[in-house]
């Protein structure tokens, strides 16, 4: 039994906090866990990816292409870029948000549409969910809770109980933002449920 989760996004979106929360929650649920972030050099605006691997005994902290049971993309282009990490039949969860890199702003290259991204991902799996994460987070009052919202969405696919995440977030998130974050987490779970997407991840 193993679960490989690849989280990808853009610097500043809170990918690392979400992957830390998942990894630590999994450890408390008895899994062996290894987690590896690739941040590049930029503090803001660069590609970020985070490999979280759970299992009875994990050796490599980084997964190979074709390994990922879950791809959680905080940004559409980054989701497309990492699509080949998905194993056949893996689950892709894509926040349908575009953060165009400079080459796109300068018209040197084109940003892929949602439909193009979906087509790329469907080469690897048919279980793909797009989510207007940024809009939901802004509607909740703070775009910064996007990461916890997406974590909530992902959590509905995993076998670990809701309470374990909530306990972890209570230590991780600054107290004044905790309530909003817990709401975002719950909202993420609801979004997953309302799409009747709930499945057990135990394989």
């Amino acid at each position: 039994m193993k679960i490989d989760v690849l989280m990808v996004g853009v610097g500043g979106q809170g990918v690392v906090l979400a992957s830390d929360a998942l990894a630590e929650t999994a450890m408390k649920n008895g899994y062996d866990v290894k987690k590896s972030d690739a941040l590049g050099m930029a503090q803001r605006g660069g590609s970020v990816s985070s490999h979280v691997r759970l299992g009875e005994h994990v050796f490599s902290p980084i997964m190979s292409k074709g390994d990922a049971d879950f791809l959680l993309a905080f940004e559409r282009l980054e989701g497309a870029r990492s699509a080949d990490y998905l194993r056949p039949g893996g689950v892709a969860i894509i926040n349908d948000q575009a953060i165009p890199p400079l080459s796109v702003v300068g018209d040197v290259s084109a940003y892929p549409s949602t439909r193009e991204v979906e087509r790329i991902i469907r080469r690897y799996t048919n279980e793909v969910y797009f989510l207007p994460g940024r809009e939901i987070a802004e509607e909740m009052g703070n775009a910064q809770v996007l990461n916890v919202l997406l974590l909530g969405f992902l959590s509905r696919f995993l076998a670990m109980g809701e309470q374990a995440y909530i306990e972890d977030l209570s230590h991780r998130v600054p107290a004044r933002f905790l309530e909003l974050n817990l709401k975002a987490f719950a909202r993420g779970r609801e979004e997953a449920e309302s799409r009747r997407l709930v499945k057990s991840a135990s394989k």
Partner: protein
Amino acid sequence: MKRLLSGNEAIALGAYHAGVSVAAAYPGTPSTEILENLARMDGIYVEWSTNEKVAMEVAMGASYGGVRALVSMKHVGLNVAADPFFAASVTGIRGGLVVVSCDDPGMHSSQNEQDNRHYARFAKVPMLEPSDSQEAYELMKLVFRLSEEFDTPVLFRTTTRISHCKTVVEVDETPEIPKRSPKFVRDPNKFVMVPTNARPRHPLMEERIQKLSSYVETFPFNESILGDRSIGIISAGAAYQYAREVFQNASFLKLVTTYPLPRNLIREFANKVERVVVVEELDPIIEDSLKAMGIEVLGKGWVPITGELNPQILKEEAIKAGLLPKSRKPPHKRPVELKLPMRPPLLCPGCPHIGASFALRRLGFYHAQPQEDLPSRREVLGELKRQGIIATSDIGCYTLAVYPPLLALDTCACMGASLGQAHGLEKAGVANKMVSVIGDSTFLHSGITNLVNIVYNKGNTTVVILDNSTTAMTGHQGHPGTGITARGEEGRRVVIEDLCRGIGVRDVNVVDAFNLPLIEATIRRCVETDEASVIVIRGPCPLHVKGKGTSLVVDADKCDSCFACLRLGCLAIVMEGDKARIDAALCVGDGCSLCLQVCPREAIKVDGAK
């Protein structure tokens, strides 16, 4: 209790539990968090030193004073610290001295991927390599003892994946922390390395390595795992973990003591397996040693010598080399038919280095014909020919200005090199005006002696010191120019402009990083003088200041799509159709306003202003 710790967190906690009394470092990816974590622990002295050489000497002094000391740095930092590192190997130590070198295969954030395992043999010191955080934590207790028992500094070598990956660690929650009392016992034969004292030390060093060679034969963390004996894999560090994943049934010899090697253990293992395979990242160091021992081994013949390894590379290469059967699955499809735009690292919105880089880019044309071009969007991002000023650069966030659209820099080699390179270019007779660009932390790290050299030898380089009052690239550590210590306490501040005047620079200027006309005018003036000059361009790192000003906005009616603002490379400026738009969530506001200054149509203003 189980905790999920990065290798660096585990090293810090392990060192603390081992009773380390003094820790010194200069920040450098991937090593920085070791000292940051130690700085949160009570009862030890922790400092950011001005550079790695100083840190090494501080740790040496503490060790001579009888207490346990740790010094940590990135791989290239050990080049800076090599002189005292070799000296410590000659003198030996009193309190345990552990030197942590964090290598960066794949160059996630480095200028090279040198393999620092060479340093162990070069300096004749023992080396250990953990393969996960649990080992890093447990080994710390052993290495200080090892250092004391054999009277030697110990090289503790990690790589990015060991330092930064988080793995589960069983932590001793009630450790008995051994503390040694500080005391310096005079022993000039040991500590004063005049030739007559140094000569008798060399045989002792050779003897020490012999003794260590026997010691490592029974070192508990070297582990032999016998499975399928047709392949026996010898590996260490992160590479061991990749190999375990890829070769699921093979036999393994995991090495933690990689210098000196446990030769008998290796021979025994080699005799038990049909074929010996070495899996190591970067150079064939274990492989060459085995070959010298007369063991037939397959190593760099199939494992790449360049770049970072991972299970995927290892698997693909193993199949090619016939070590693994061909996978029945078809090769994985890659999204090739769509060329996805890359997302290269850029300076953050509101970065105080943008204005200076933009000015240098523009002044690159200064001695050539002025080019008041109004380019299409493509040309804004494309390479434009620069002449006139040569901008030698240094190591820091500002090095990102080498990328489009800033394209401001001509060289970058290592910490402090920008000043010497500019001086050398000038003395070679190159006719261009020289500007050397260096950050505040890097200037204090290794720019000072270069500036002294320029003054002394009558150079006329213009030294631009980009002062954002922090060591930003590694995550905002203090340095002498900030006066804030590793524990976040008030130290004494070294004032950079005063320092430069003290060195003898007569033309020292301090300029606001967000005043573009003044930056340009000052550089223009300084490059025309016949003497060395310093321009301190000062502005805070936007990630380091709390709160932000009022966002700027584009008046779409006035914007005539000249794209001048895109030349700043600010992430907050995006295009909506043909018009520029400023993302209020990313814009740091009127504290920056560089885009307002470069807009020729006055289409950009502070939100709410008339």
